[in-house]
């Protein structure tokens, strides 16, 4: 897809991969709206993008809140126009340190699903009709191998990512032929605050940098027409295709 002038909304945009995606999209002349719960880090990323000549806006919202979705989509479209690209990067691990399912409160699982699954569903639903009418659009779900492998202690997060993958797949099947595409991307282990929360003892030198991963993801977005809608790519496949 043509990124120059495209309107993009990235959730989880104040740090990690979301912020890196925002910087990379803006570098390629997309008009970017970044979304995060906290104002301070978000403002810093937006200011940095603007200082380097990009167009970016920051909106404070919790994508796990039902009431937040239409205000977010409306304000974003007012700022950058009808959305062409929606990246679901915001997600929560749930309670840390991570714990086994037998120790997970039902409410904590529900909260993880609200943020990682129901939020992306609501946001997609609010945006996708406009994409269908215009015959173009790309929705990216940022996923994890915890959604494929049943790692001990990653249950709540893993269940939410497995379901997000299936959500993307089903949207793709239902909207085949409309010009609106869906893709699940597993970026692999990256050196982010979220990774440190989940695995505080990990050796950071083995972790990928979010900026490099973001550049590959944006390369993929640019050549999205060559991939089947609804595909799920892991980090090795992302590197190969990009």
């Amino acid at each position, binding site marked *: 897809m043509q990124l120059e002038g495209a309107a993009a909304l990235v959730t989880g945009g104040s740090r990690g991969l979301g912020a890196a995606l925002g910087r990379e999209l803006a570098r390629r002349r997309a008009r970017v709206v970044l979304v995060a719960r906290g104002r301070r880090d978000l403002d810093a990323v937006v200011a940095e993008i603007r200082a380097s000549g990009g167009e970016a*806006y*920051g*909106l*404070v919202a919790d994508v796990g809140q039902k*009431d937040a*979705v*239409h*205000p*977010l*989509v*409306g*304000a974003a*479209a*007012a*700022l950058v*126009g*009808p*959305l062409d690209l929606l990246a679901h990067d915001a997600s929560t691990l749930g309670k840390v340190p991570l714990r086994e399912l037998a120790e997970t409160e039902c409410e904590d699982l529900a909260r993880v699903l609200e943020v990682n699954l129901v939020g992306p569903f609501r946001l997609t639903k*609010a945006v*996708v*009709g*406009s994409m*269908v*009418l*215009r015959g173009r659009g790309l929705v990216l779900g940022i996923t994890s191998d915890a959604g494929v492998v049943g790692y001990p202690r990653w249950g709540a997060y893993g269940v939410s990512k497995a379901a997000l993958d299936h959500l993307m797949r089903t949207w793709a099947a239902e*909207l085949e032929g*409309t010009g609106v595409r869906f893709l699940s991307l597993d970026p692999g282990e990256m050196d982010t605050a979220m990774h440190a929360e989940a695995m505080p003892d990990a050796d950071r030198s083995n972790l990928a940098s979010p900026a490099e991963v973001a550049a590959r993801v944006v390369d993929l977005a640019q050549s999205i027409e060559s991939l089947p809608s609804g595909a799920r790519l892991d980090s090795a496949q992302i590197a190969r295709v990009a």
Partner: protein
Amino acid sequence: MKPAVWPRDEARLLQVDPMARTVADRRLPDLPSLLRANDVLVVNDAATLPASLSGSTRRGPVEARLAGPGETDRDWTAVLFGAGSWRQRTEDRPPPPELSPGEWIRFGDELSAEVRGVSPVSPRLVDLRFAEGGEALWSALYRQGRPVQYSYLCGPLALWHVQTAYGSRPWAVEMPSAGRPLGVALLGQLRRRGVGIATVTHAAGLSSSGDPGLDARLPLPERFEVPPSTVEAIHAARGAAGRVLAVGTSVVRALEASAANDGHVRSGRGVAALRISAGFEPRVVDGLLTGVHEPGTSHFELLKAFAAEPLLEEARARAEAWGYLGHEFGDLSLILAG
């Protein structure tokens, strides 16, 4: 006709054929079978703002309803109401305190606007300029604003109740209601039948101001934008003997205003200030999908440009007898020659 008192999932469809002079009782899912390949359906893709803002002034409380965007995103026309609630009819609401240019209205902690002008038509109709712009303005508008409410409803509307499935830029201050029942699946069925779907963005305005003098002037001039793809779609439909079907009166106004000079729709922005009623000869739109409107409203007047008044009266009477529901969340009518 009774109003629909809450948003519903389905709609009945009153099929009115101005040529055959027939009226038939159908359902919205029948729409694809009533259209043909090469017809084009034009929808208003404006999302609906939470345009009602509770404010305070030195002279007392007001409700400001944004009526339409001005030159910058900080400039808006607005209609002011006095204290009261949405459960009262607008005409029963007390008038707002009379404000003069230079006075300020505060909306909560994070939003304020200066009165820049007061209309000679009505002291309720004012030009506002918000102190905030950009993200701060839009975030605050969405936090402080509520959708314009209707006194006949059984409860207050949330923002999602007043959106269509395909809205994007928030230009409308009241819902472009004819499009609300059109889901993504139905649009897909229409496309598979060969019906084109095109868009305009039209800043649909307020339906009621509470001031009879001002109400008589509604709709106020409204901003619209026609994308190049819509000009092409209309041209293609015309070339293949297809019909142009407008979804809602706002689309009729946008397309006819766009073609006002020479009968050709042009891409780009404009302001629709025209009044469409009996005797108006549509140059672009062949028919429309709209609500079931009552005589005496500006919507009903507009229909007279598409069908003779006796047929419209008969259609309305039949709809009432068949139990159709009216107003924003009511049933639909299709006024189109077969």
